[in-house]
């Protein structure tokens, strides 16, 4: 069934640790749907042919007498119970309860806004600096980082560029500056609303680097296009263009990228220093 769903459209890559379990429950439900639909369909068509007026001019007042349909209904109920307890509840519980907090977890804040994704890294100290809406400046400081805060001095922010390491738990602290957005990574089977006024954790562990993914997608309609962040909740005029980009590095690539960002930050600081002095 999974192969059929993939032929139909389901992304053939399921590039996170929880991706396969989500694909699995989607496949199982589609099995149930298929069996019910085919069962009903066969009965339906056979009945229409057998009991058409020309074939069966006199209707039977009593109609059907057996109770097979009740067994079928009970069967559906049992399968649904199995799906709930066996798969749906555990997957959801893991999503909510297993938010990684260990030292090797990468913590990143993602702040949606009309119509971009702001990405906020805590820097070397591992602590997010203070932010303040009154410091928001769409040009230089879209999330209002307060550089006077000690924890904020090494913080890194980017727009629409999320960089993460592969095979490492990533915990995204998701929020929004304005209206509701939805942070969706289709190939990783990750999706979470960014609700105004709330910061909601959404975690995942990527199992494939961008490089590997690009190699895999050679020859498909999306050749040359890496992982993207989609906005999956109507957020206004630019909603359809609110695309972010995600790069999954191997460990070395990730630390190189972080180093690069630190250098940019230093250059920026020097500029600031100069402005204040003169």
């Amino acid at each position: 069934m999974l192969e059929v769903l993939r032929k139909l459209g389901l992304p053939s890559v399921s590039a996170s640790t929880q991706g396969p379990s989500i694909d699995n429950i989607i496949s199982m439900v589609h099995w149930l749907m298929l069996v019910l639909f085919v069962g009903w369909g066969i009965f339906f068509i056979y009945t229409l042919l057998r009991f058409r007026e020309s074939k069966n001019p006199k209707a039977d007042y009593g109609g059907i007498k057996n109770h097979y349909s009740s067994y079928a209904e009970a069967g559906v109920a049992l399968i649904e119970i199995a799906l709930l307890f066996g798969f749906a509840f555990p997957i959801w519980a893991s999503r909510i309860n297993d938010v990684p907090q260990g030292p090797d977890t990468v913590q990143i804040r993602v702040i949606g806004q009309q119509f971009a994704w702001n990405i906020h890294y805590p820097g070397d100290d591992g602590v997010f600096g203070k932010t303040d809406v009154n410091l928001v400046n769409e040009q230089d400081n879209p999330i209002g980082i307060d550089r006077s805060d000690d924890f904020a001095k090494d913080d890194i922010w980017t727009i629409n560029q999320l960089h993460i390491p592969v095979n490492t738990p990533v915990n995204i602290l998701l929020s929004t500056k304005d209206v509701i957005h939805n942070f969706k990574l289709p190939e990783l089977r990750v999706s979470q609303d960014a609700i105004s006024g709330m910061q909601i954790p959404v975690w995942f562990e990527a199992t494939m680097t961008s490089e590997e993914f690009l190699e895999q997608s050679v020859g498909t309609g999306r050749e040359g296009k890496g992982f993207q962040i989609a906005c999956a909740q109507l957020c206004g005029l630019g909603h359809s263009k609110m695309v972010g980009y995600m790069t999954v590095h191997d460990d070395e690539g990730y630390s190189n990228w972080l180093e690069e960002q630190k250098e940019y930050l230093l250059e920026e600081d020097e500029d600031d220093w100069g402005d204040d002095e003169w």
Partner: protein
Amino acid sequence: MSDNHTKETFFTKYIWSIDHKVIGIQYGITALLWLLVGFGLMMVMRYQLAYPDTQIPFIGWIFGEDKLLLPEKYNSLGAMHGTIMIFLGVVPLAFGAFGNYLVPLQIGAIDMAFPRLNAASYWTYFLGSIIMVVGFFVPGGAANSGWTSYPPLADVATAGQTVWLLGMVMLITSSLLGSVNIMVTVIQLRAEGMTWFRLPIFVWTQFITAFLLLLAFPPLEAAGILQLMDRLAGTSFFLPTGLVVSGEVLTNAGGGSPLLWQHLFWFLAHPEVYVLILPAFGIISEIIANNTRKPLSGYKSLVYAMTFLGFMSFVVWAHHMYLTGMGTTMGAFFQTTTMIISIPSVVILTALLLSLWGGSIRFNTPMLFALAFLPMFGIGGLTGLPLGLAAADIHLHDTYYVIGHFHYVVAPGTLFALFAGVYFWFPKVTGKSLNESLGKLHFYFSFIFMNGVFMPMFIQGLAGVSRRLADGGQAYAHAADVIYLNEIMSWSAWLLGMAQLFFIANVVLTLFKARTGEINPWNATTIDWTETTSPPLGHGNFEKIPVVYRGPYEYSVPGSKIDFTPQTEKG
């Protein structure tokens, strides 16, 4: 009764009428026109989806000199398509038109319990629907935050949103008036002998629907007024602290919650789904019993399943909100209730399918629409299952899979049922039968193109393509392999529009024909067919109030000479 005939002028008889039949027809005509408008909006949107950022042909001038459907206009059309189809089209047609016209006739009542309230309900609806479209003419255009109107987006949207809220308040008020009326009518005005379990299934569905409307709509009315306050009076019921919109700190924000709106909205909007589908079940049941010439299999299980469905529809609403950050307890509760509600749906569909067994099935136009309803509703219902399981919903939430799912329920589902009902009761209302050949052409083309529109949506949804993208997903890599489907869906939609010309032509041509004088062309058993003329006498319906002796579907009773035994036949 007779004194009602004396002082009537054209105006009191056809416009300002308090006769449930006239009001039913008023509802029917108004709602059918709105359905056409709502569908028209979608045909324009489908052009933008198939050929993004190209000039709209023929009517492009409406959208300005560049003739482009820019995202703000696309979003307006999207929000208004949903609103018009549901609140101005399907509900008024299913509940206002069919309910009003048929319930008193089927239970043997001379009118609704409160005829003046009934007229008030129609005119409130009419006014609300006019207010709704006034939105198109205010600065910034009509509401553009989706038919769900989620704040903060809706709170900060252009003036059209205010108009939308005012329109909704009127429409909700209208539904409340209508629902009270149906409830009291069914409880109080049943003819002698018309016990609860002799009611046609159609009446049961209207009765349950009335409860849903009465209990589900007030929370949305309250929520609508709160949002109106947020927009007009500077309150912040749905605005939390610290919002920055377009670079400006939103000064009136603080202390509110956008999730409050979502809970109140879906507390209405989920039962609303059953408001859309229950009357369809009712219509289908009548037509299937009549055209199989046998009783329904499991009348009582249908009634119990529908009642249970009505109750359960109040405790599943948050399955629209799994991705808002819902915890495990709420997640488990709403997933469980959602799976539970699928059971009565399966029972109903199975009962209707089993009812075909042993019948002598006539394939006339109403029956074709009714039969097609079964697999179409089946697809709509089944595709709800993965969406009801939060884990599967992670990938499918708010994608075209959802759009395909609920359109299968409402378009080839409910709309087919409503068409079946129009073909079936047209002779009752006008005394003239619609042409069968045109009807069948209408059916077959509608059936093909409905599926052409909605089936590909599941494929795009599986790929993860979101709804409400003004360019159909052009910007996204994951849409690249399935975006070609947009063109197929759009052409299907336009051809579906063409197929409706068969229906329109059929209605117009038939209205010019002379009445046949035939009272009961389908050889039906229920009072609406057997005890009134077609069309019924003026206000008052019956020469003599009927007395009921038996159940509603006594077809092919063993030992009877004819294959139908009216409810009013003694013995």
